[in-house]
């Protein structure tokens, strides 16, 4: 028996355990470019039309940061390769989390010990997780390539595009394996892994926004973009990807050899022997469980992200100064600050989707506490179900408020500082951040309703709703979906401020919907069995 014995059996185990989730996300990710391509082909059938579309988008440095370097030719394939690049990041996040789920989470739950005593080699678990995630990435890549070919794009470019997608999945599977070795907790491992993706994204974005070529090679996410499918088709990048993935996996394996099962490389710290005097209420417990996430979002998205948005906003105005035609359009629309306002309203809208993810995950904390049986001993004390649930909901609903307020303040201050009109701009930008809240609360409250009524389905419903809103908001219009369908997303109803017209009715209606959903969830939770496992 060698250290990889049993890898095949463990891969089958992973495929069995993920038999529902895996096909769903492979299909979803794999078909995303196809749906974009058919939509784009219908809307922009000519090269000239596509070039105009590309120039319009690429004029905004923020979008270059999001989507990567703009395509070198206006062919349909090159445009879709560029426009669907967010999918590459999502795929990287999925495979990273998948590997952590099947390594560190298993270990934390003690199931790794169970398997370790069976005929399974020491490295089999790690290898199986990386291979399964890589296999899934390849499956996505194949679907991407086939889908693109079905839209009459060149075969070589389609294959390069499929490989570029698969590459990101494979590399971040290996990086996930490294993250899983570093800490004892799965939560911290996820944090480290997502942090690496965040840094890769920021480095890639900064490189493309400032056109600093060499910086790009530091980011594995950049490698996929720089394949430039349909134009340069740089095949050699895949050699780089293969070498790097093997090296990362090797690093993960050698890190894993240097630690005990269950332990991390970073030593655990001791806690308090006696709880602090205030640690005596359900709310104090909830604060301990939620505060890390809340600080992370407030600082990461709120302060840092906000400052970034605010800083770039003013430069959109300056960029327009060079483009007479656009400047004229903007002037007709309402003056100099229109471009910056539109940019700020747009980024707040994208930020809101991210903050909704935070709200949903905070609400799902209740489900996590229940399913892990940690809620049981608490509810066996004289804590009522209502006070237990409300103490979590404080964070699920007010947490997004704190994050959006931080984003608005930070963006408003930085933008105001660059325009010199802080007192004017700060309230407008802050308002643009806060108007997003009702839509965010609707998704959070929907998750709470699901938690009360159909607890097992709560994660699926919460994340599914978010994915649907993301789809509707990002590509809905491009796919030519009708307004009735687009209206299903609460974000469709959020007023576009600053810049647009403030509308109070949708805000009130959305908030009312959120209250009703939350009340429904809580009243069902009061009546139902606990724990539902």
């Amino acid at each position, binding site marked *: 028996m060698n250290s990889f014995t049993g890898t095949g059996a463990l891969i089958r185990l992973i495929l069995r355990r993920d038999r529902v989730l895996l096909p769903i996300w492979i299909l979803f990710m794999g078909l995303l470019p196809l749906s974009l391509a058919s939509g784009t082909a219908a809307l922009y059938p000519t090269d000239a039309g596509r070039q105009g579309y590309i120039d319009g988008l690429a004029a905004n440095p923020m979008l270059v940061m999001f989507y990567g370097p703009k395509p070198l030719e206006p062919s349909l394939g090159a445009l879709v390769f560029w426009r669907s690049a967010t999918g590459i990041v999502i795929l990287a996040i999925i495979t990273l989390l998948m590997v952590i789920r099947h390594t560190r989470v298993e270990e934390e739950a003690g199931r790794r010990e169970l398997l370790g005593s069976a005929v399974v080699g020491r490295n089999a678990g790690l290898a199986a997780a990386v291979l399964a995630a890589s296999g899934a990435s390849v499956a996505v890549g194949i679907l991407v390539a086939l889908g693109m070919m079905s839209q009459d794009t060149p075969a070589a470019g389609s294959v390069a595009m499929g490989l570029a997608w698969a590459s990101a999945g494979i590399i971040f599977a290996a990086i996930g394996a490294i993250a899983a070795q570093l800490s004892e907790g799965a939560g911290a491992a996820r944090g480290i892994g997502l942090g690496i993706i965040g840094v890769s994204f920021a480095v890639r974005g900064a490189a493309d926004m400032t056109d600093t070529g060499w910086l790009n090679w530091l980011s594995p996410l950049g490698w996929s973009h720089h394949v430039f499918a349909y134009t340069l088709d740089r095949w050699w990048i895949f050699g780089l990807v293969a070498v790097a993935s093997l090296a990362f996996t090797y690093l993960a394996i050698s890190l894993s050899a240097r630690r005990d099962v269950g332990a991390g490389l970073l030593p*655990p710290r*001791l806690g*308090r022997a006696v709880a602090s005097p205030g640690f005596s209420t359900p709310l104090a417990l909830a604060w301990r469980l939620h505060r*890390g996430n809340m600080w992370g979002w407030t600082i990461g998205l709120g302060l840092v992200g906000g400052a970034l948005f605010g800083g770039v906003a003013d430069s959109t105005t300056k960029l327009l100064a060079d483009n007479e035609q656009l400047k004229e359009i903007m002037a007709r629309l309402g003056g100099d600050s229109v471009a910056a306002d539109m940019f700020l309203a747009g980024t707040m809208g994208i930020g809101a989707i991210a903050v909704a993810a935070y709200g949903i995950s905070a609400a799902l904390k209740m489900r996590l506490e229940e399913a892990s*049986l940690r809620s049981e*001993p608490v509810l066996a*004390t*004289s804590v*009522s179900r209502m006070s237990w649930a409300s103490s979590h909901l404080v964070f699920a609903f007010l947490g997004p408020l704190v994050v959006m307020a931080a984003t608005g303040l930070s963006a408003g201050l930085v933008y105001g500082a660059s325009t010199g009109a802080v007192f004017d701009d700060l309230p407008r930008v802050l308002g643009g951040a806060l108007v997003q809240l009702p839509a965010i609360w609707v998704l959070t409250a929907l998750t709470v309703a699901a938690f009360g009524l159909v607890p097992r389905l709560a994660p699926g419903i919460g994340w599914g709703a978010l994915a649907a809103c993301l789809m509707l908001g990002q590509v809905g219009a491009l796919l030519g979906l009708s307004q009735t369908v687009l209206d299903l997303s609460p974000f469709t109803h959020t007023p576009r401020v600053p810049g647009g017209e403030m509308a109070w009715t949708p805000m009130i209606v959305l908030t009312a919907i959120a209250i009703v959903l939350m009340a429904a969830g809580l009243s069902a939770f009061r009546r139902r*069995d606990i724990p539902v496992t």
Partner: protein
Amino acid sequence: MENAISVSGLVKNFGPTRALDGLDLTVATGEVHGFLGPNGAGKTTTIRVLLGLLRADSGQATLLGGDPWRDAVTLHKRLAYVPGDVTLWPNLSGGEVIDLLGRLRGGLDPKRRKDLLKRFDLDPRKKGRAYSKGNRQKVGLIAALASNVELLLLDEPTSGLDPLMEEEFRQVIAEEARNGRTVLLSSHILSEVEALCDRVSIIRLGRTVETGTLAQLRHLTRTSISAELASPPNGLAELPGVHDVHIQDHQVNLQVDSTQLDAVLRQLSASGVRSLVSQPPTLEELFLRHYETPETAGANQK
């Protein structure tokens, strides 16, 4: 008030699975009551109903004179619960969990807490994820035992403890009992139940199959007899209360209900006894009798 817990005809279904099927349970105030049954018999489900976490489909349950579902919050001030599998928050220390659960229940005795930490040899500074199964169990036990409550609900609380700690646990529970606390102890370990419990209920497939004091239950057990006789025995197998009779020439092995021992001995001496070995009744046999029979435990479909 007479009974700390009284449950009758309790029924609980989980979809097609009938977890409790008319269960009866009475625990008198001040007694240590053993709650035994094979895996899946419904012990945990019963305790969760008593905690007001699950709502029974039918039947009555009274806990400390109140309704476990309706009065959950006030009743919980007067009881402490230890689950069979204590799960902790990965980033909270054991000491914090002990204090939190104690305070949420209405306070805990700091002297007792210190004493228990020492007796169970637990480092309260470690974070939840750093504890082994046995140590997590200790955190749950100390959190429950450090409070001054009337009733302890313990669901297989010693799973994962080593023999030394198991012994410590017995001593602590014996002290609790002397101090007048009522204990419902669901358990798998017979010696533990024999050492601690005044009365025992055995459940199977969601029903109570035996209940009584240990002496009464012993009465239900069988003595095994192995005898060599002068002449071949006859009529033994027909006697009431006789089981598993094996006869080979003059050698006979059998089991007999303790109530029927007298008749069997008379029948044996009629054939002339040359040698006789009798094994005293053990509770173990009684339990095995209820535990054995096809492993239907998991598949108790309606």
